[in-house]
């Protein structure tokens, strides 16, 4: 004691300085300076020659902890803290454990030492030490600790002689380990004994054990199902006890609120009890809890009402979970209704939240609906955005056909002033409700256009795609949509999304309103074009497509539009996409006959049915939160509705349509999980569909899915010799790919990094022209994703940029006609996204003297084209070779020579392969070694090659090693054909 005194005083002074400079908020620099000084001091103490006594060690470890908690990084002292664990002085041990709990993140070297110390304390039979050790495990909860102690702790937990406080810690410690490593906590004989802890005399033990039981029974409900009756009787005893019975477990006159909540929570892991007596007792409890809510408070303190209401809300959750007691559900709803107008913001918030789930129960849906005015009022007047958010959620949940118009209108008007943080979600919700409950689609169109007008910035692509899909699929609304959008566009400032929708709809259906001189074709065009210069590139691109559609719809606008397309700002636009569109559309409009135009630019076909992408987006946005659950529940409920009777009388509209048409159209949003059924005719009910969710849609999705007839014509299977032809190009980039009596196809290609460009030359060897010359590039197998069209004749100039999973191929069109003896060129741009095996297919169709020619070749794009040669010295080569020593990284083939084994030819081929040919690496000069890196967008794959010719046997042994097994294999296959 005495000897400690001087050190002690000094430490006070030092640490005081740190505090003071910290608290006084002196300059950050001063604080850092002070702390660095202190850290240096501590470091020197730890490193010093003199062994520190336990007290000083504790003091310095404590200081480090303090400094860490001030927000500074600590990178030493761990060892000293671990040393403290084995001290037999309580405070030293305690500080050691605290340091470990706060600062150790499964640092593998220390964890063994820590685990040792913990083990000692656990077996010490000293309850305070045991608790410290258990707290530490619960706080760190690493996998290593689970491995070490998951077997031991259950024993401590259920042993008869364990102290209550140790039991409590052991239960929650085990819970933490179970959460981190459920596989390591094995169920066993102890589980049944754990359930009986619910009967323990010590309330603290029950409180701790029940959290563990709840978690375990979620994963193993059968093993723990006896807990239900135990929980009910425990709950019943608490609920019926007087406020003083439970002594210190009564909190502000509420008996055991934490335990009650946990019991009610545990019961939510199970269905209602089957045993009538148990169930009766439970219902009694729930009724008592509901009754108590009506009694005058025993205290004015907020703690009293919070604790009481915490139990009430948990009871309501259980009632909602059971969803089988209409009486209780309605009572719960009424209770929440009272809270909706409570002066406590917290209660209003929770009532709104809880009602959201009640709204999805068929028993209480109607009761919830009666509160609509209060909720709307909350949306308008609550001062706290998080409460308004709950109100919006509830309106969404209580919406059905009977009140959709009112709710959507309220949400729209709220949007005008809504907080930025919740606008996007509100927009999605309005869009979904408008679609889901649309009886007449003009209301739907109005709503979405209003949405764009009010909150255009928050209208995501999914929303405006969707309105277009719906308009395209429903001919009864097209004229109205055209008229409305035309009017909306007349506003002096309108949102770009409005221009997009406007461009698309007028481009498709502008003819429906062209009869009115106020919206004549030219007026429409001028209106659209007046917005053009204010728009971004994608919108402009869409507008250009709308213009070309105008030329088809209204021949009288042709010259005006051609003039626009011809202007420098279009045809020489610095943006490639816009320029290309302008050039192509201009050309298309000048050379194509009206028939051709009419076919190319015909109205979009109806979209196939899919799940609404908006809904998907909302689900994604909310995560597994309340709304998405509601969605599913609601879907489920409506599903039940189909089979059984109706809920309430007001929703006859939807119920009738559901019941009368046993078609997929009843499932408006694709909520049900059943197998997708192909869409019936668009007229059948309310068929709403969605293409955009799946298709890798082009920038505007306008023309790309156009006439399917052309592409779907049967494509010939690849020629038998196509593999051979492909192999010819593995080691070279230029040459003749294919030749027959009619056609010659030449190739020139160049590659850099993961990009490539290929020029295809189609030569007509005859003296007669080829007509309707079409080429299509498709990617089979693993590359497959979407078909890429190169329209050349009837459907020329339509470009599609398609993202393949692995290979991005972009083609530029060829001319539709190839005169006799002439040659046309086509450019294909290629991007390698990830490694691949299958080559893309090139299909060529044309008519020669009336006969259809149809042939398919493999486009010589192979993975080695993306090689980047790597020079390296012998040493490096062998080092890397060894690094790639896993069996799957290597591919090897021994094969017979197909060609003469000429060294120079071999070298030329290996160079053509794209790798670097390394000299003086292999000790055997006859052998060849190469190195290179394949460049894909996703990753780089280093590859090494060794080719060992055996001239005597006329055999080769080829070995490849790459960091990716598929690459080794593919390269080996390709190369084995080359020599």
């Amino acid at each position, binding site marked *: *004691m005495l000897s400690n005194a001087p050190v*002690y005083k000094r430490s*006070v002074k030092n*640490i005081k300085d740190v*505090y*003071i400079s910290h*608290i*006084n908020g002196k300059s950050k620099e001063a604080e850092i300076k002070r702390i660095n000084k202190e850290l240096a001091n501590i470091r020197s103490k730890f490193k010093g020659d003199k062994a520190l006594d336990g007290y000083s060690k504790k003091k310095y470890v404590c200081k480090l*902890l*303090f400094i860490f*908690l001030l*927000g500074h990084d600590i990178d030493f002292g761990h060892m000293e803290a671990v040393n403290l664990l084995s001290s037999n*002085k*309580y*405070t030293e041990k*305690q*500080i050691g454990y*605290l340091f470990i*709990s*706060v600062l150790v*993140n499964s640092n593998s070297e220390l964890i063994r030492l820590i685990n040792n110390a913990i083990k000692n304390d656990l077996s010490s039979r000293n309850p*305070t030490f045991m608790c410290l050790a*258990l707290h530490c495990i*619960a*706080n760190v*909860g690493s996998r290593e600790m689970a491995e070490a102690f998951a077997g031991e702790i259950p024993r401590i937990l259920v042993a008869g002689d364990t102290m209550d*406080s140790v039991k*409590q810690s052991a239960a*929650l410690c085990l*819970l*933490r380990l179970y959460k981190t490593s459920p596989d390591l906590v094995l169920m066993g004989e102890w589980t049944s004994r754990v359930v009986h802890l619910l009967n323990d005399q010590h*309330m*603290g033990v029950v*409180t701790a054990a029940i*959290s563990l039981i709840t978690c375990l029974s979620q994963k193993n409900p059968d093993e723990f199902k006896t807990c239900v009756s135990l929980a009910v009787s425990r709950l019943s005893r608490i609920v019926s006890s007087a406020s003083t019975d439970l002594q*210190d*477990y009564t*909190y502000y006159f509420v008996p*055991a*609120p*934490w335990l009650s*909540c946990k019991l009610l929570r545990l019961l*939510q892991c199970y269905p209602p009890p089957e045993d009538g007596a148990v169930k009766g007792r439970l219902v009694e409890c729930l009724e008592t809890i509901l009754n108590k809510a009506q009694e005058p408070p025993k205290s004015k303190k907020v*703690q009293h009402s*919070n*604790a009481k209401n*915490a139990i009430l*809300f948990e009871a309501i*959750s259980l009632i909602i979970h059971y969803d089988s007691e209409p009486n209780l559900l309605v009572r719960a709803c009424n209770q929440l209704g009272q809270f909706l107008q409570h002066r406590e*913001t*917290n209660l*209003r*918030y*929770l009532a709104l939240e809880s009602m959201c789930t009640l709204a999805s129960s068929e028993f209480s849906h109607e009761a919830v609906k009666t509160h609509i005015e209060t909720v709307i009022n909350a949306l308008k007047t609550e*001062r*706290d955005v*998080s*409460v308004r958010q709950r109100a919006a959620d509830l309106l969404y949940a209580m919406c059905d056909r009977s009140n959709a118009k009112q709710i959507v209108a309220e949400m729209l008007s709220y949007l005008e002033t809504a907080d930025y943080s919740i606008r996007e979600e509100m927009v999605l919700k309005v869009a979904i409700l408008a679609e889901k409950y649309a009886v007449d689609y003009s209301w739907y169109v109005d709503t979405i256009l209003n949405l764009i007008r009010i909150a255009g910035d928050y209208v995501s692509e999914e929303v405006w795609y969707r309105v277009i899909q719906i308009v395209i699929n429903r001919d009864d609304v097209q004229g109205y949509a055209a008229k409305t959008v035309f009017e909306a566009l007349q506003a002096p400032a309108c949102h770009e999304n409005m221009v997009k929708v406007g461009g698309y709809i007028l481009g498709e259906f502008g003819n429906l309103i062209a009869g009115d001189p106020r919206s004549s074709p030219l007026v429409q065009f001028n209106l659209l074009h007046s917005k053009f210069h204010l728009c971004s590139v994608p919108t402009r691109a869409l507008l250009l497509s709308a213009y070309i559609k105008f030329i088809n719809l209204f021949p009288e606008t042709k010259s005006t539009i051609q003039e626009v397309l011809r202007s420098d700002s279009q045809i020489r636009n610095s943006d490639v996409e816009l320029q290309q569109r302008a050039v192509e559309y201009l050309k298309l409009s000048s050379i194509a006959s009206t028939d051709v135009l009419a076919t190319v630019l015909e109205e979009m076909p109806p979209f196939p049915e899919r799940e609404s992408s908006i809904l998907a987006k909302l689900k994604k946005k909310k995560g*597994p*939160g309340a709304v998405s659950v509601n969605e599913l529940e609601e879907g489920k409920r409506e599903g039940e509705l189909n089979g059984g009777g109706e809920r309430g009388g007001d929703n006859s509209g939807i119920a009738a349509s559901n019941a009368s048409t046993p078609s997929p159209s009843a499932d408006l949003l694709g909520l049900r999980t059943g197998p997708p059924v192909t869409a019936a005719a668009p007229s059948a009910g309310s068929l709403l569909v969605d293409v955009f969710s799946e298709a890798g849609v082009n920038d505007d999705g306008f023309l790309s899915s156009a006439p399917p007839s052309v592409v779907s014509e049967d494509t010939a299977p690849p020629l038998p010799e196509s593999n051979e032809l492909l192999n010819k190009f593995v080691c070279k980039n230029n040459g003749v790919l294919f030749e027959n009596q009619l056609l010659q196809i030449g190739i020139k290609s160049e590659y850099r990094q993961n990009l490539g460009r290929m020029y295809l030359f189609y030569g007509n060897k005859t003296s007669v022209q080829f007509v309707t010359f079409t080429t299509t590039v498709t990617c089979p197998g693993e590359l497959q994703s979407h078909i890429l069209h190169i329209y050349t004749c009837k459907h020329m100039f339509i470009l599609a940029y398609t993202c393949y999973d692995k290979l991005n191929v972009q083609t530029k069109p060829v001319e539709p006609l190839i005169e006799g003896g002439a040659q046309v060129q086509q450019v294909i741009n290629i991007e390698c996204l990830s490694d691949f095996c299958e080559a893309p297919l090139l299909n060529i169709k044309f008519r020669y003297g009336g006969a259809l020619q149809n042939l398919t070749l493999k486009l010589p794009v192979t993975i080695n084209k993306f090689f980047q040669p790597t020079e390296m010295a012998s040493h490096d080569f062998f080092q890397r070779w060894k690094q790639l020593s896993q069996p799957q990284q290597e591919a090897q083939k021994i094969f017979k020579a197909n060609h003469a084994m000429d060294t120079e030819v071999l070298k030329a081929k290996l160079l053509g392969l794209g790798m670097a040919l390394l000299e003086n690496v292999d000790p055997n000069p006859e052998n060849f070694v190469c190195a290179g890196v394949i460049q894909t967008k996703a990753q780089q794959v280093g590859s090494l090659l060794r080719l060992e010719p055996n001239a005597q046997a006329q055999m080769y042994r080829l070995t490849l090693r790459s960091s990716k097994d598929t690459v080794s294999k593919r390269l080996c296959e390709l190369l084995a054909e080359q020599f």
Partner: protein
Amino acid sequence: MQFMLLFSRQGKLRLQKWYVPLSDKEKKKITRELVQTVLARKPKMCSFLEWRDLKIVYKRYASLYFCCAIEDQDNELITLEIIHRYVELLDKYFGSVCELDIIFNFEKAYFILDEFLLGGEAQETSKKNVLKAIEQADLLQEVRRKYFLSLIKCFGRFAEQSQTEDWGGLANEEIL
């Protein structure tokens, strides 16, 4: 419960307890974001908010904010009372607790919390039992730290006066 944070009105973190494994970087990011969000809220606003996929329950006591992150199915009101019980425990132990007690005796604040909550769940809700455990441990201390504590506390109080106006017991000075 996933974590509990205590921070001052100036945004200084005073205590942090994490019940889920997170990297230091994530912890810092979460702390920064949450402190900002909570401090930006006005008094009289509701004590709950949605944040990422968690529910935040917070309450201000004098100059300190107590802030808990709970999961979707957890009960907000009972969490609010967990906070209050913790404040009561601190208050009882320190005798009219103030922010400085938590700064200077952070280890005690942690020990009390560990007795009350473990692994994010209530372990012992009886005030008497929790304090008994802590006091028992105190008895084991070979050096009484009272002198040390009071000295720092005095000095701290003196230094802090310009910074914070309310220095009484936190438990008696609930805001909200």
